[in-house]
């Protein structure tokens, strides 16, 4: 009986999978890639946080958010605001008409730091804000909508509209947000220069460590009763409700969790890449993040990481050499993954590869909720 065999929240094949991924990210890639390429991987991995959130939110709970870029961006902007303030010390900005405020504010004739920037002088507050601001925002959206039983395509469209609104707002309010260019020219974290290759390598490993923490968290949630309730809700929402659960609360929770995960990714993005801009917030990046998750397999936690890496790797290599082909390829990917491979890489792995590698599938594949999405 499988349910007795599993005392800890990870099944044997999960452990194997995590270890393989860890070896890949911690040993193989750092040893084989030059630091320039490794920085790319680091950047891709920040999107994997978003994809991870989508596995829980979309794959397990059936809630498709087309606004995950909003949370990625909010997390990233929180981090960027802190770094920008550190880079805008009075000393560094003495040529400005108002020294001590970020340069773009000065260019826009703003003479005093806006109130919502002030908390970002403090590093602990920034760390809290990175997770809390997006989670709170997700809570408000989720609470308003799920309590009124809005779901499915309506939820998708409204989250997409929110992504559009936030982008327009950030671009429009140049003086407060840095506008279309975003917040750029970030230099140091607590005096530690984040622009050097050495710093970037360190940040890569920090990012990987955080990613694994989030992966474990995702596994825990998935294997808890809450994970099974999400699957049950996706299937027969009314039955769950009439078994005594307040369904909306569970949806709000998983949406907030996905938002918080995305935000961590966003903050790591800012640190590693050195800027944050509205181009990671809007409709297009948000829906692209969904495809990372879909390619990996919407029900597979580790698949989300592989899917993200693969799609981004393809994007980088194609758009370097054949930019026209990339858009066609991406479009085709959306269609193919929906029509032909609804379970993504993980599905291909499970049906074609894993059966040949008996030692990996120690337990029967009775993964709760890992019901294959039928191709038709």
């Amino acid at each position, binding site marked *: 009986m499988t349910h007795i065999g599993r005392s800890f929240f990870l099944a044997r094949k999960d452990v194997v999978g995590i270890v393989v991924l860890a070896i890949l990210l911690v040993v193989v890639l750092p040893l084989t890639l030059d630091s320039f390429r490794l920085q790319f991987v680091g950047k891709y991995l920040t999107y994997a946080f978003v994809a991870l959130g989508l596995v829980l939110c979309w794959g397990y709970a059936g809630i498709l958010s087309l606004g995950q870029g909003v949370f990625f961006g909010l997390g990233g902007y929180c981090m960027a605001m802190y770094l920008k303030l550190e880079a805008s010390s009075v000393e560094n900005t003495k040529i400005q008409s108002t020294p001590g405020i970020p340069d773009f504010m000065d260019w826009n004739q703003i003479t005093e730091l806006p109130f919502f920037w002030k908390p970002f002088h403090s590093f602990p507050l920034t760390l809290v804000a990175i997770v809390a601001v997006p989670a709170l925002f997700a809570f408000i959206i989720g609470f308003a909508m799920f309590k009124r039983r809005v779901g499915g395509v309506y939820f998708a469209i409204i989250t997409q509209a929110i992504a*559009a609104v936030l982008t327009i707002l950030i671009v429009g309010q140049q003086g407060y947000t840095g506008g279309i260019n975003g917040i750029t020219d970030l230099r140091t974290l607590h005096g530690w220069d984040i622009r050097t290759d050495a710093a970037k390598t360190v940040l890569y490993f920090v990012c990987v460590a955080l990613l694994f923490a989030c992966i474990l968290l995702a596994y825990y949630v998935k294997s808890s009763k809450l994970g099974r309730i999400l699957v049950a809700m996706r299937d027969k929402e009314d039955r769950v409700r009439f078994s005594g659960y307040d369904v909306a609360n569970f949806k709000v929770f998983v949406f907030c969790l996905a938002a918080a995960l995305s935000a961590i990714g966003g903050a790591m993005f800012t640190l590693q890449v050195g800027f944050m801009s509205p181009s990671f917030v809007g*409709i297009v990046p948000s829906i692209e993040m969904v495809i990372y998750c*879909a390619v990996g397999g919407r029900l597979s936690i580790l698949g989300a990481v592989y899917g993200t890496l693969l799609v981004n790797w393809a994007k980088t290599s194609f758009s370097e050499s054949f930019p026209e082909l990339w858009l066609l390829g991406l479009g085709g990917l959306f269609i193919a993954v929906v029509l032909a491979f609804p379970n993504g890489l993980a599905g291909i792995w499970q049906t074609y590869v894993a059966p040949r590698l008996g030692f990996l599938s120690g337990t029967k594949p009775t993964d709760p909720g890992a019901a294959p999405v039928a191709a038709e």
Partner: protein
Amino acid sequence: MFSDYSLTELGSIFVMQGFAGLILFSVFLLMALGLAIIFGQMGVINMAHGEFMILGAYVTYFTSQFFLNYLPSLFGIYFFIAMILAFIASGALGMAVEWLMIRHLYKRPLDTLLATWGLSLILQQVYRSVFGPREVGVELPGWMMGSLNLTDAIEVQINGLFVMGLTIAITIAVALLMYRSSWGKQVRAVVQNRTMAGAVGINTERVDRLTFGLGCGIAGVAGSAFTMIGSTGPTAGQLYIVDTFLVVVFGGAQSLIGTIASAFTISQAQSTMEFFLSGSMAKVLTLLGVIIILMLRPQGLFVIKVRR
């Protein structure tokens, strides 16, 4: 902010902005009509709707070029022919897409959304490769140029008036088709009870295909109308898709009156605010207003009570 203007000036501003709003209204309504049919009747989210529209715009552009070069004497009426061609082109593409893709996904609305997004990326790239990345504009026939002066301060463009007239005509045609024709009855029968409709001899697959094609065809006509007031580029369709979806959802998905009312409200709100605020803030406030109202009243403005 009002104190800077005199009363008559304010009056004229409202009239002119109202007129600008009416053009925006026509744009929204034309796009929303096709979507309302596809989403409202079939429950399918077509993210590539904007690209179907752009196809209509390109068809119009090429028709105008053709007339300019080969039939200059008939240039005055090219637009009407272009509109028909646009309808046929977008409609045919729509039916092909339904057959290849959409019909496999009726039970998975969220997946349709992703697949049609993919389609929109592909179409954009195809337009870019085939028609070039530049924006193109059509040449208006002589009778459509110029403007009417209602008073000293108020003038309205003829092409704008024409597009409005066209919008009204298309809306009436769609209403008649959906609520008066036997085909419209079939569509509504299929929507309400697919199995039953099938049982009484309606070819539901054919109805689906034609409905989708019709929605796309109307998008093509909308694109055609757009060329009268703006230029066309490969990515122009994407600019409007979110607004249009909000229009449809805000209007209550299944009602034509709702779509019209919501297109009107949103466009008027946006264009009036645009005069006093920057364009981007007007848009932010309008969209935000719509989103908040939708959060409070998710069923939209007009809704039919249905069994859950």
